[in-house]
């Protein structure tokens, strides 16, 4: 028992460190990718090619004056940034970065918590992150953040639905909510080949849930100045940022597990590279895809975003479920 707790704590620390590193260098990657896409260099001053930039950013944000809006609802105002970081950290526990490793004759499962309802847990926990944005928008007692908060509430509720519906197809094929089972199912063929529609719908919904461009309406800096975080500064602002990037990483990781075959190598002759490396590589590929999208497209309008969700994505995912259901029944021997 003591051994088990010790191992879990060590795993937690390692996972947390990986996530934070990923987040820190995610911000740098964002700026570098943006820079190179736009024919410039991005951060260059701190360290060779700006590799120390995340540290500099962190220090700067840490030492910045912490301004509290005078008319703010203090409790909620302080609560919101904290809430922004919690959901991705909670999801961290279920990410199946690999199956298991053997150290000194002992087999240690790699996921921190191998739970049977991992997918439901993921959906439940990520839907909490809307509270951070809504409360952040509300508590500042300012108009732009309020508009941002309102937008995010509507956006989250709609896209939560798409997210859930797109995963159902996968769950139907695998017959399990367990992420490790889902990854194991993909040993021979990745699920995004069997479920392309669900994959696209998942990615769109994930980007929308993360408030990333082109769906970054709650912050929309050219319309709502900064949206929900307009009234925040210093580390509170940084926490929102941290939450956003951590969410991106976690969403990419879950998508990797659900659709891209988790820790399995794309082809068998590449399987000498360990599973966790593959997992991180795939996660980074999806992360990069999100950056790439952001620097390519204009922003949708609020009503158009809702229209896209309810008029297109939800019917499409419902049809996907119907189709998957038919296939599953026919394969099982039919009616």
């Amino acid at each position, binding site marked *: 028992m003591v051994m088990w707790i010790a191992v879990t704590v060590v795993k937690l620390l390692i996972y947390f460190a990986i996530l934070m590193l990923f987040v820190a260098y995610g911000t740098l990657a964002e700026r570098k990718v943006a*820079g*190179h896409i*736009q*024919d410039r260099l991005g951060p260059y001053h701190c360290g060779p090619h700006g590799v120390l930039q995340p540290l500099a950013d962190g220090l700067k944000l840490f030492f910045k004056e912490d301004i509290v809006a005078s008319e703010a609802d203090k409790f909620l105002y302080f609560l919101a940034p904290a809430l922004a970081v919690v959901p991705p950290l909670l999801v961290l526990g279920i990410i199946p970065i690999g199956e298991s490793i053997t150290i000194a004759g002992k087999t240690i499962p790699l996921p921190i918590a191998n739970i049977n309802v991992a997918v439901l847990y993921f959906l439940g926990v990520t839907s909490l992150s809307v509270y951070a944005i809504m409360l952040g928008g509300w508590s500042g007692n300012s108009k732009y953040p309020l508009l941002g908060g309102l937008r995010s509430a509507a956006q989250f509720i709609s896209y939560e639905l798409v997210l859930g519906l797109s995963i159902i197809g996968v769950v139907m094929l695998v017959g399990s909510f367990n992420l490790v089972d889902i990854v194991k199912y993909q040993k021979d063929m990745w699920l995004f080949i069997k479920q392309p529609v669900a994959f696209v719908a998942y990615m769109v919904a994930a980007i929308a849930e993360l408030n990333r461009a082109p769906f970054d309406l709650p912050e929309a800096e050219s319309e709502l100045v900064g949206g929900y975080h307009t009234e925040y500064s210093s580390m509170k602002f940084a926490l929102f940022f941290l939450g956003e990037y951590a969410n991106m990483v976690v969403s990419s990781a879950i998508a990797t597990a659900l659709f891209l075959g988790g820790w399995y190598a794309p082809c068998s002759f590449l399987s000498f590279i360990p599973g966790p490396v593959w997992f991180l590589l795939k996660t980074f590929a999806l992360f990069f895809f999100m950056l*790439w*999208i952001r*620097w*390519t497209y204009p922003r949708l309008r609020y009503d158009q975003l809702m229209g896209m969700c309810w008029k297109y994505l939800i019917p499409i995912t419902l049809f996907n479920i119907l189709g998957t259901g038919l296939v599953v029944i026919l394969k099982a021997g039919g009616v």
Partner: protein
Amino acid sequence: MVGPLLKGLKITFSHLFKPAFTVKYPYEKIEVAPRWRGKHVLRVDEEGREKCCYCGLCEAVCPANAIRIYGEEAPLEKSDVGKIAVIYEIDYRRCIFCGYCEEACPRGAIELTTFYELAEPEREKLLQTKETLLEKR
């Protein structure tokens, strides 16, 4: 519907590997055109005499009233026409770098150079006097 969206992705991806268009400014300096209107210089002739003969045209033509000039009689070894500007001040808090002073000057005494790093940490330092303006030989 999807076609143009994919084309956009293609364009941005192709730029990812193109060389940057920007200049790493503090490390690399930009070459400016010879006609660049930068910091002023008061020219001196071959014998080291100031070319300026205090005619006051630059002061009169300046649209921003940035130039203050005051002159006195001077011996011939200091000026070939016997007049010299004792005070020549250009206030860079007012100057708009239009180049009219250079155009108005009948003797080519004041010119705008290609020097462009004019920022100062204190406002007072922006007042250019004869010491900072006079050409060094």
